[in-house]
């Protein structure tokens, strides 16, 4: 694709607007409270859009959209969890107490909230370190999502795209702090909403309406490649076969890993502390719910439907289009070569006919032989290719900015969280080193985090083989690790006076280690890439069955983490009533029980 004047203008206008919002944040940042929790007085619309835009990255749209194009619309279970767990449960049952407790304990970051609730410098410092070490994996995945798109659109190299993202985002995070991050997030969220709404409408209209488009996708089940069929694929509008490798990957890694992991994302939880009362959270639930529906709901639906478009246009499913020679696709676009007709399987021939019938353009010069190309398919390229091929140029420009906005809004929060994790949580509190200028320490921490994340993003595609949903895996890995390390401790902090400091520490350590152990030695997708198992045991995984090899770490580590926190709580000394009263001040039910000395 060539760079048009329209694209350049769109991007420049977007960057100027981002810079203005970042500058407003910078001017309004006068204290560490402003820098860390945006002064605790944010408007619900800004909070909800910021939460949503941080939650949804380019990886959710490009990476997971590509996964939906591969695995089908079963990915919508993730959208359901994104809305029900990621917004409703998170805001109503976690957000309100987090806000109130954060206020009572004067906590400015998620690790600080946990550390103060359990009166443990270790928890704050170790949580900060865990975030700082592993968040770059997620940030790397986000940057890859954006970089792949920029590669497609501008034809620039991967390294340039990475530096572009990191540099622009770093500037407003370092200077604008949380206010800069939230204002730009809200602006970027609004762009994302418009872009995705147009994409949904355009796709359904192009494919003949909601039900017709779905019917055409259903009819394509005959075209599922044999390899995918063997993996459990049963068509793009059916769930994969129960307990098959594809089902395990879809349900345990993508749906559960990300769907549940969202509850303990430090960069999201801290946003609950940026509003002044529960009223703001109640109002933000509406905006958050609609926003997420329009993000992952649209990405997964359109992702799967790209198959209908590509089969109609090139007679290839989306995965095959990513393997095809770009020159061949261009020749087909121009009508110089006609797509070869794939022979549908007999049983499905009648159903598949409407979509596989290739229009024979007048004066055609020949027919493209659609052989199984030698190149590996890259699911991450499907959405960018669909936008480039199916959408009008004005929309390509808008969508490019949508993806830039999605990547930058997530990245800015990741940089901010990594910065505060290493500076405030690990350096200042964990190591107990006091500093005269903690704002400066924050900025240095952010700078180190950014460099680390860029290096990871540069290395990831080299370490993990292409075509393995690298963006989706990077994201779900971090979500899964956070779930095992933080969810039991977080629920205990907000809802129970029984959970002890020792139990929280034990759950954090054992949950994290179990998750990492399972990634390194059992879950083949990561263990093969990490090569630790290969080095020690000379094989990619210790799993003896396909089910074990595809069972996501969250399914193992989260229950273990819960078990540990319950058992250790029963065996160790309870937290003092005085501290609990302070923690649960204003959280009526538990505070009242504690005051009465109830157990």
């Amino acid at each position, binding site marked *: 694709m060539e760079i048009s004047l329209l694209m350049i203008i769109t991007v420049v206008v977007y960057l100027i607007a981002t810079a203005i919002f970042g500058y407003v944040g910078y001017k309004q940042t006068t204290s560490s409270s402003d820098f860390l929790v945006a002064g605790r007085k944010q408007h619900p619309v800004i909070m909800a859009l910021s939460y949503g835009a941080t939650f949804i990255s380019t990886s959710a749209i490009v990476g997971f959209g590509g996964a939906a194009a591969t695995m089908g*619309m079963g990915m919508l279970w993730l959208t359901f969890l994104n809305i*029900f767990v990621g917004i409703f449960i998170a805001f109503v049952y976690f957000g309100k107490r987090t806000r109130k407790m954060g206020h009572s304990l004067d906590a400015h970051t998620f690790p600080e909230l946990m550390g103060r609730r359990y009166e443990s410098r270790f928890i704050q410092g170790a949580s900060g370190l865990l975030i700082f070490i592993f968040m770059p994996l997620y940030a790397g995945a986000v940057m890859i999502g954006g970089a792949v798109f920029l590669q497609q659109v501008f034809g620039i190299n991967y390294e340039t795209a990475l530096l572009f993202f990191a540099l622009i985002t770093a500037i407003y995070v370092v200077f604008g702090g949380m206010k800069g991050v939230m204002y730009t997030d809200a602006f970027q969220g609004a762009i994302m909403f418009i872009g995705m709404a147009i994409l949904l409408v355009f796709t359904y209209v192009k494919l003949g309406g*909601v039900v017709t488009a779905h019917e055409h996708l259903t009819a394509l089940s005959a075209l599922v490649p044999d390899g995918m069929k063997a993996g459990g694929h049963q068509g793009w509008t059916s769930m994969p076969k129960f307990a098959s490798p594809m089902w395990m990957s879809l349900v345990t890694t993508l749906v559960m890993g990300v769907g549940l992991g969202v509850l303990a994302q430090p960069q999201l939880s801290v946003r609950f502390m940026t509003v002044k009362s529960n009223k703001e*959270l109640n109002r933000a639930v509406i905006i958050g719910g609609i926003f997420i529906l329009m993000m992952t709901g649209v990405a997964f639906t359109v992702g799967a439907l790209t198959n209908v478009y590509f089969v109609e246009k090139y007679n290839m499913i989306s995965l095959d289009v990513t393997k095809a020679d770009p020159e061949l696709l261009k020749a087909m676009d121009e009508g110089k070569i006609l797509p070869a007709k794939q022979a549908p399987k007999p049983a499905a021939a009648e159903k598949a006919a409407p979509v596989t019938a290739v229009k024979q353009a007048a004066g055609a010069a020949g027919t493209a032989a659609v052989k199984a190309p030698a190149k590996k398919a890259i699911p991450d390229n499907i959405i960018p290719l669909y936008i480039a091929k199916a959408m009008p140029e004005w929309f390509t420009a808008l969508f490019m900015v949508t993806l830039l906005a999605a990547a930058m809004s997530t990245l800015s929060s990741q940089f901010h969280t990594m910065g505060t994790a290493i500076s405030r949580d690990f350096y200042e509190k964990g190591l107990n080193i006091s500093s005269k200028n903690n704002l400066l320490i924050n900025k240095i921490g952010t700078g180190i985090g950014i460099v680390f994340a860029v290096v990871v993003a540069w290395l990831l595609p080299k370490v993990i083989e292409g075509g393995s949903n690298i963006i989706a895996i990077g994201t779900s890995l971090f979500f899964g690790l956070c779930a095992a390390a933080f969810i039991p401790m977080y629920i205990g902090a907000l809802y129970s006076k029984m959970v002890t400091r020792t139990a929280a520490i034990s759950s954090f350590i054992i949950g994290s280690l179990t998750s990492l152990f399972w990634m390194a030695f059992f879950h083949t997708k990561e263990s093969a890439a990490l090569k630790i198992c290969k080095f020690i045991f000379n094989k990619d995984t210790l799993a003896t069955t396909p089910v074990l090899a595809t069972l996501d770490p969250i399914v193992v580590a989260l229950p273990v983490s819960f078990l540990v926190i319950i058992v250790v709580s029963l065996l160790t000394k309870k937290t003092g009533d005085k501290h609990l009263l302070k923690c649960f001040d204003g959280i009526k039910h538990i505070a009242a029980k504690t005051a009465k000395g109830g157990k």
Partner: protein
Amino acid sequence: MLGLEGTGVALAYIFTILATLLCIVYGWVNWNKGDEHETKEIKEELKWEEKDSKLAK
């Protein structure tokens, strides 16, 4: 249902929309509830702001 072959996928599609409706209804019903900006919180904020300005110096 809805042109979708598998019940699992059709349910996911419907539940997704229902979850969004739940968020809308909840927010609508509780629009003006939860305003608890008490005197105590104002005092706490003043205390933190003083602390912040000291640290900033």
